[in-house]
């Protein structure tokens, strides 16, 4: 999902128009959890957006300046996650764009099965004008059949 998302952002014409004027300074926000009754732990949520940023940095070097959300930056630096480039400290750069992700879900549960439909929406927003420059969404459906002692 993250690979696909990184490729689509780079290929987007509106994003391309902005990039033609110089590198984009983007702040990465933690994933917002709007899922019904499902926890999205902080670590995976932050690592997920951090991976998108790393992929974009690989595919389009020098075209993005990534600014991580201050809390996430220092937490991830503390954890020293492998394969995740943290980029400059949040104090060093003033971002113009924000990359946000929202996870939502619809869950249906009965005594025999549980089905969940997940929707992940990503947005690249122009912070000065509040314009959404790019948006992408991904859907996943999970079905679990309950056993005797579930």
């Amino acid at each position, binding site marked *: 999902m993250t690979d696909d998302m990184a490729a689509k952002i780079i290929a987007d014409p509106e994003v391309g128009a902005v990039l033609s004027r110089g590198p984009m300074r983007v702040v990465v926000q933690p994933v917002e959890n709007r899922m019904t009754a499902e*926890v999205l732990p902080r670590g995976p949520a932050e690592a997920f957006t951090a991976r998108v940023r790393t992929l974009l940095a690989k595919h389009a070097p020098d075209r993005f300046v990534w600014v991580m959300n201050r809390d996430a930056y220092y937490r991830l630096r503390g954890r020293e996650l492998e394969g995740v480039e943290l980029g400059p400290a949040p104090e060093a750069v003033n971002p113009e764009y924000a990359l946000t992700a929202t996870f939502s879900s619809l869950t249906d549960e009965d005594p025999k099965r549980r089905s969940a439909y997940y929707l992940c929406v990503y947005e690249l927003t122009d912070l000065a004008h509040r314009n959404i420059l790019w948006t992408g969404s991904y859907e996943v459906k999970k079905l679990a059949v309950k056993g*005797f*002692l579930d």
Partner: protein
Amino acid sequence: MNVARLTLIAITMLATGCAASKAQRRADRAVEDYFIGNYAAAREQLRPLAQKANEDFVLNNVRLGSAALAEYDLDEAEDAFLRAYEVINSVGVNDGGRSLGAVLVDEKVKIWKGEPFERAMVNFYLGLIYYMREDYGNARAAFENALFKLRDYKDPKSKSSDYSEQESNFVAALVMLGKSWQKLGRDDLARATFDQIKQRRSELGPLADYERNATSNLLVVIDFGYGPHKVTDFDGSIVGFAPRPSEAGTVPGPRVTIDGREIDTSAFARAPFDLLAMAQDRRWQSIDTIRATKSAIGSGLLVGGAATGLYGADHGHDEAVYVGLGMMAAGLLLKGTSQADVRQWEMLPRTTFILPVRVEPGTHDLCVDFPNAPGLKQTWRNIVVPPTGEATYYLRMQRWANNVNEWPPPALVDAQK
């Protein structure tokens, strides 16, 4: 396949009896340490146990979560409760030989996922940790998960599948869910949640007051007393939970003082829930699943064996008589054997008080005691109350713990380094 796995599990249990009892002794020591307030020692004992992917994985993780939360090590508490949460919310963890082994050999073979009230508390504590960290999106999700559907049996004597499902009445999670919605700016959902509490439990109206919660800058969450434990009869089968609320007496209300001055918390003096009462409510139980299954299979074997035996006797088939007798013996054995699963989350409180109050912002000394429970008193010096937002403090009331503490606790200082 199942028979082979069952045999393997049975042999493994026999062969590893010593190892299991060593782990059990270690867990027992950890529980004892917890009860005397030596949370550090309890965590030390529980950490290696909580990493072992065995049938006690969830149990040891919730035990570790309780000990870590009492010491404000929110990272360890979150990790432990999350590990438990993942397994509790997974399906099929007891498939195959474990189910069969639990029915035929020993209920402890099954992976412990807790009774419904224990599962609700896992979600509640997970939500509380997120709420303390001001991660309201995840807090909301965890409190929602604590409000799972319960089986409401139409016929109170029936243990069959004759039940409907209804939303749980776990008010503590509803209160915290309403507060989380408030923090997330969803006033509509916050009001709807608080209204739900007022409709179900009108005596808890002040706790579900929208304005009071909106203006609160200090939230005191107090775990009081101890939860229920499983009791067995002479042959080792579970007969229920003890003590009953009437045996344990009424839950006393807390008294809260800030800088030596008592603040009015009379509106919150009623316990939002009573685990002793919840454990007696069939909707919050699942312990009869295996008993019912064993009983059904045992009865089937008895009836089938009797019929086969009678048929054999009538028709002069000795083999059929012996088969029938064998089936009846197996049925009796099944009904009368196999050890009940008495594993439980011992650290659970009897109730959790939730006190949203507004006090002068700044640094204060917080003291909580229970006038009707002498000797139960806990003090936190130099707690910080913000001018905006809400600071949440969790207190586990225990008579023998170190009950005079300095804020911030060492675990929180280490986490902030």
